[in-house]
């Protein structure tokens, strides 16, 4: 029996489809994360009381976006779990195929998550206006279609960045067992240190430079570059890893 020639991209595509089917359970996680975010959001993000019996509640979907980002980080790590690798390599694969199909899968998940955020946002508006019984000021802040598209893309880009971060962390923790221990320490440490640094204006400059650009296109470009870099480094680092020790 002769050796068969190998079509690289058709194998990547097949692996992507396999991962799509195999990881459908992760979408349940998305639903749970967003429900939690919605519950937290009902409380409102801030309220003003002017003492005259009139109360203003501000409802935003920030929490929904943040929770969805966390979910994407989690699945970015999860897609690399050993059980998944065993399945991947019982079919046809090498490291490159594995990483590329993972990344395509994460991008698709980011797309789904973005749509889910928009839907959750609509749901939040409907529920709050229904339950609060007050007057919603929303209709007066109508967005133009252009602004709406930019908003959606911005959310999508943030989510994409989150998935790339998750994936990078996942590869790091495979690369060295110690990283698994250090990731939580790093995150908690960051939570403690970053606010200080922010107040000192060290990080805030970097952060605003990358992520809070006034020009959307420039912002998009920067996020895409950072995301691409993260995925690229993940692939490079993951390329020498063994499937089974």
């Amino acid at each position, binding site marked *: *029996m*002769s*050796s*068969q020639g*190998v079509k*690289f991209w058709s*194998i990547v595509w*097949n692996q992507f*489809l*396999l991962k799509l*089917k*195999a*990881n*459908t*359970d992760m979408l349940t996680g998305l639903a749970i994360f967003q429900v939690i975010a919605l519950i937290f959001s009902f409380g409102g993000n801030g309220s003003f009381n002017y003492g005259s019996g009139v109360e203003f509640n501000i409802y935003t979907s920030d929490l929904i976006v943040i929770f969805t980002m966390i979910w994407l980080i989690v699945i970015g790590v999860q897609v690399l779990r050993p*059980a*998944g690798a*065993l*399945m991947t*390599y*019982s*079919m*046809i*694969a*090498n*490291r*490159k*195929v594995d990483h590329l199909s993972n990344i395509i899968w994460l991008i698709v998940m980011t797309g789904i998550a973005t749509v889910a955020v928009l839907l959750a946002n609509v749901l939040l508006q409907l529920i709050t206006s229904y339950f609060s019984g007050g007057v919603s000021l929303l209709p007066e802040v109508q967005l133009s279609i252009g602004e709406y598209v930019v908003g959606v893309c911005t959310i999508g880009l943030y989510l994409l960045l989150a998935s790339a971060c998750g994936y990078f962390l996942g590869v790091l923790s495979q690369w060295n067992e110690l990283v698994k221990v250090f990731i939580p320490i790093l995150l908690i440490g960051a939570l403690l240190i970053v606010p200080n640094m922010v107040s000192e204006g060290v990080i805030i400059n970097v952060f605003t430079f990358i992520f809070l650009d006034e020009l959307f296109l420039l912002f998009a470009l920067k996020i895409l570059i950072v995301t691409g870099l993260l995925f690229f480094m993940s692939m490079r680092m993951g*390329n*020498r890893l*063994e*499937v*089974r*020790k």
Partner: protein
Amino acid sequence: MEAIKCTNVVKKYGGRLALDHLSTEIPTNSITGIVGRNGAGKTTLLKIIAGLTRETSGDIQVLGAHPFNSLQVSANSIFIDDVLSFPNTLTLLDILKEGERFYPNWQMDLARRLLEYFEMPEQMVHSYLSKGKKSTFNAVFGLATRSPLTIFDEPTTGMDASVRSDFYRALLKDYLAHPRTILISSHHVDEIEDLLEYVLLIDLGKTKLHKEIDDVRSFLIGIYGRTELLEHWVKEREVYYRRRIGDTETYVVIENHVEKEELEKLGFKTEAISCSDACVYVTNQRKGGIDDVFTRR
């Protein structure tokens, strides 16, 4: 032509040598049994051949390519063991369909008939299967890929005796119809020996014996005789095993380069050594037998 060629392959895990300059060649379209004690390096060698693990040093060629991270090798080989698992979101039939999308030689009909024969519902989820059924499913998957290089690492773990013999029968039948290179590792040499063309015995990460199965069967011979006579006679020979029987007789196992007539003249009795016993004697040499544990104080 050889399907696999290993030259001085070394694999280190931390400081431990799992493979110690192992060299071997496996011919194309043959069934080879990989035999050895626990921790001898069988699984490590098979994983390196399948490209799942990278060798520390040495040269290895599988189907004309270096296996680690090779899509070519992955596409033409399958590695089956009892660790292999599939997510809960896929039923057995889903997994078979995935196999069909990937493997060009995939045998869907054979796979489904085997599942039916082994009484495994296609809608079952892999992780809910018992250990034996998991092994059976994995083995069926391995057969169905009909890969030019098919590797089974302890494929029958947990299978009951009748399923084991059915599996080996299925493997042989499919091999007869579609010859390919097959490697099987097993603790139970006697179960697979009739299937094999070659035996590769690994010990301490090295090739200890690599012969045709019939040559392994006649490699050693057991000899009974009066102690003084026999001890004098084996002085110049390598003794693989030695046991005193009562006060006057001794039993030794040596390599089978002896004239039976000479033995008869000396009054010795001979006994054939089976393939699995030969493997035990060859690898036990360094520490003597279990009896020594009790006699040396």
